[in-house]
């Protein structure tokens, strides 16, 4: 048996270039398959970790998924605003324990700006109901104070006291800058692995202040209000994008949801983040499945290539197999020889594929977080992750082993048919 392994290794080395490319194709297929599965899992986890402990997300009546994506994940198009008076009414509702106003629309060098209240730093929860923590400085207090998400500070190299200029809308164009009313960084949040990391937080009055001399999305010509004078104006917002609500008792959530829907003053809706996320996954689920199916197809093509390469080499190796038969090798030992080769190439492909993917994750995780706000786990795997990854790799290995048996079985059959003289 030991010598058969030696023979298998030497034979494989003799055809190393062909087998190397086969191994590479299996490696790429493995990377793709495991990568898609990891991405799918991590994106879901990243989304589900982004908000927790919030009972309702309230906004103008439209698509719940769109509201969720924009207000919580800063993805997609701006939704219609809700009136500030409606938000105040809800905040003062006896069933409501806390509320956080969210006002979006502006940006700073590609990062979204969120106008909110100090309650954001007290009540907002993410992950496993973890509160926000300051890495440096403190929450905002003044009108032109800004608190940066960890990623914003890291990417832009900002420190406390830094002066930043916000841009109107999400374009970040110089011409649309609120250059006359800069903000000052007073705090930097600790990393959360959520869209918070990519957000510039300012107080709602600050958001109002920079738009005092703007109308219809552009500065009013010949009219400018200096920062020192903004306090002379009413800085209460007229509208906000959405509102996060925490109830005193979770059991009241459906009653509250109904009360919001029945409010005749304004057409609003209250959505439960978890339920809306489920709706979102249903929407993208088919795409996910299609992607996974394609990945499996690629993996099967890779394994098919393995079978084809070994089978193609088999005809040329019939004389070699006959020689081994003549010196006493049994047919099942020849089956083992060929199957071992296929199995080894599969295992090698899986190992290289996982290594490639790991390297890619190390390199791409920060980039994906920076550009898409999705915190991938990278190489950090939980117990469940390890189990599911092992199961996936096990399936690939099983498929590879079955595929390897095909040429092995053919070698077995040929060794019986050929005798000592291959009829090629």
């Amino acid at each position, binding site marked *: 048996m030991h010598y058969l392994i030696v023979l298998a290794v030497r034979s494989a080395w003799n055809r190393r270039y062909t087998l190397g490319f086969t191994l590479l194709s299996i490696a790429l297929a493995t990377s793709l398959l495991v990568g898609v599965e990891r991405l799918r899992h991590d994106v879901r986890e990243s989304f589900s970790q982004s908000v927790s402990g919030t009972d309702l997300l309230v906004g103008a009546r439209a698509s719940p998924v769109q509201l969720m994506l924009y207000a919580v994940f800063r993805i997609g198009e701006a939704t219609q605003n809700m009136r500030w008076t409606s938000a105040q009414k809800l905040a003062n509702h006896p069933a409501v324990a806390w509320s956080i106003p969210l006002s979006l629309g502006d940006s700073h060098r590609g990062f979204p700006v969120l106008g909110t209240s100090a309650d954001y730093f007290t009540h907002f929860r993410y992950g496993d109901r973890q509160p926000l923590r300051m890495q440096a400085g403190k929450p905002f207090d003044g009108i032109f104070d800004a608190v940066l998400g960890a990623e914003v500070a890291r990417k832009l190299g900002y420190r406390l006291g830094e002066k930043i200029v916000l841009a109107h809308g999400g374009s970040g164009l110089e011409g649309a800058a609120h250059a006359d009313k800069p903000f000052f960084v007073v705090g930097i949040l600790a990393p959360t692995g959520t869209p918070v990391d990519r957000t510039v937080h300012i107080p709602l009055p600050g958001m109002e202040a920079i738009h005092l001399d703007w109308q219809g999305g552009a500065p009013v010509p010949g009219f400018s209000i200096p920062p020192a004078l903004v306090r002379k104006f009413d800085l209460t917002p007229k509208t906000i994008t959405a509102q996060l609500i925490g109830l005193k008792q979770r059991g009241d959530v459906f009653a509250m949801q109904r009360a919001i829907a029945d409010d005749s003053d304004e057409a609003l809706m209250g959505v439960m983040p978890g339920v809306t996320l489920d709706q979102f996954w249903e929407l993208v689920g088919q795409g996910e499945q299609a992607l996974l199916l394609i990945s499996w197809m690629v993996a099967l093509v890779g394994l098919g290539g393995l079978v084809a390469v070994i089978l193609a080499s088999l005809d040329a190796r019939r004389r070699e197999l006959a020689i081994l038969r003549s*010196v006493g090798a049994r047919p099942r030992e020849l089956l083992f020889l060929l199957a071992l080769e296929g199995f080894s190439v599969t295992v090698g492909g899986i190992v290289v594929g996982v290594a490639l993917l790991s390297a890619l994750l190390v390199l791409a995780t920060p980039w994906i977080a920076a550009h898409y706000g999705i915190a991938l786990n990278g190489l950090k795997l939980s117990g469940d992750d390890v189990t599911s990854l092992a199961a996936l790799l096990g399936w690939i290995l099983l498929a590879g082993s079955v595929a390897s048996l095909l040429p092995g079985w053919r070698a077995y059959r040929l060794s019986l048919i050929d005798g*000592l003289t291959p009829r090629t």
Partner: protein
Amino acid sequence: MNSETVFAITDLIFRWPRQDAVCLDLPALRLQRGEHAFLHGPSGCGKSTLLSLIGGVLAPENGRIELLGEDLGRLRSTQRDRRRADHIGFVFQQFNLVPYLPVIDNVLLPCRFSARRRERAQAGGASLRGEAERLLGHLDLARDLWRRPATDLSVGQQQRVAAARALIGHPELLIADEPTSALDAGRQEVFLDLLLREANAAGSTVLFVSHDRRLASHFVHDLALPTLNRASHGETACTI
């Protein structure tokens, strides 16, 4: 059966699967220890099939094939494989060596599959490699070729390596299937002399198969398979 009989065939019938016609119908064929026999016949007459039967790779439909007194038909296929590894050395026509092994490892191949051949190769106190080198030296293969890949050698050199592989561990029977057909006339003579000399030294019985009648003069027995094979009086059925 005489104890000096190396192999004996009695009333052998063989036909290939899914074929009606009989390929081989041999009433009797026997070789004694140390004898050198020349078996000839045209291509497709069943020479290679007969060798596979003697080697225990194929099994007859009827009749007996005895190797060193043991009826191969009564053995399981794994036991036949073991007997072949222990007692028979093969030299083929061409492509005789495992291409990815060095010369010396090709020679040692039978010792990897047969403990008996391994023990007999070491019987004189030599190491396995020493014995392989001794055989290669006796077969006039230059020392600098011993560690080279088998594919670096000429056809004639490869045949000598194959002869060394067949003879290592002193098998009782050496079967050579058209080993000289890829060599020119001069090299045929040299190779044949070396092969028979070493077979004598190893005490091996030789069954040499060829379609070239000119080589028969080197052998005591000249066996024409078409004459021995009763099935070949009609259409031959040994090509599948």
